């Protein structure tokens, strides 16, 4: 039962903390319901924006873990060809996916009569949020993966639950802050 015990031991605390962040996120969203209800385009896309950054972060962490295990990335905080290729590849993917997300959002908006307030400002806010989150998460996850790997832990078990919940909270937080500043 070594595998079972390792998974439970490494995951339990972080999963509980992450779920608490999830509850905080729900409370934060309901207290800012007025901002979100006046700009329903954000409300419509928020789950998909969370999923997009969450997916890319999960892929980033699982790739970093695999690279560290098979030795294609050295367990030290320094630039490598593999790391740069992963950074550029994931950045290109997130930008392309974001374009798809915005197009799908517009199609749904027009076909369901959801009002579109300040579309250009909203799009800039979404793009800005995604880029800031991506840069922040990539460097944070790279350093954390190496730290955990060096201590014999599986970064998948620690970082994925933590980062997905942090994204669920930070994403709406950044979007609401930007809306308050720019609109």
């Amino acid at each position: 039962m070594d595998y079972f015990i390792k998974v439970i031991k490494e995951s339990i605390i972080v999963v509980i903390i992450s779920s608490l962040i999830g509850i905080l996120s729900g409370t934060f969203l309901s207290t800012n319901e007025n901002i979100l209800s006046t700009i329903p385009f954000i409300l419509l896309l928020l789950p998909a924006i969370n999923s997009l950054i969450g997916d890319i972060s999960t892929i980033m962490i699982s790739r970093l873990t695999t690279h560290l295990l098979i030795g294609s990335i050295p367990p030290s905080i320094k630039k490598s060809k593999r790391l740069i290729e992963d950074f550029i590849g994931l950045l290109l993917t997130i930008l392309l996916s974001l374009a798809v997300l915005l197009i799908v959002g517009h199609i749904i908006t027009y076909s369901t009569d959801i009002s579109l307030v300040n579309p250009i400002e909203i799009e800039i806010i979404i793009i800005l949020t995604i880029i800031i989150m991506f840069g922040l998460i990539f460097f944070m996850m790279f350093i954390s993966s190496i730290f955990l790997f060096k201590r014999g832990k599986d970064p998948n078990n620690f970082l994925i639950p933590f980062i997905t919940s942090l994204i669920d909270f930070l994403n709406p937080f950044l979007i609401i802050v930007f809306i308050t500043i720019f609109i």
Partner: protein
Amino acid sequence: MEREDSRFTIVKEIFPSETLSIMGSVLAGLILSLIILEFKSFPILILLIPALLSLRGNISSPFIARTAKDLIIGQFNKRNIAENILSTYLLAIITAFLIGIFTLIINIFIFKFNYFSNELFILIPLISMLFTLSLVITISILLNSVVFKFGLDPNNIIPPIMTGIGEFFNVVFFYLTLILLGVP
């Protein structure tokens, strides 16, 4: 399986599945707002929903990543699969229970809604999460194995597809649980 993915290989493998994920998430959002909004207890359900969506991601994403890692490093055997599944269920049960307890505490001290009995705060996340995980675990093991057999990296392809599938069915099973428990 050691591969040297270029930046374009990464885009080529992740982008199509990410597009599917986006579709699933948008669909889940639409279903959520169309169906769950109709419930009388919506003000308290909306407090549970972000935590539940988050929990599914927190539990199933590491499961998928561990399965992919086991395949790549050659440790994908019956024993590891069984222990991976068991630990995932145990984590889900503990966390869903705690989500219910914390939401109940928040409701008692902050919102003070009285739409349904206290035990439903625990039963709703627990039952809907067990339904969702049973489906997500089965599909992700199958997809991981198939993708790996075709010489592709499951890390790149499976997580986004499973997010789309997982989010969609999470909402569907959440709705079915509400119906099953007779939530107003």
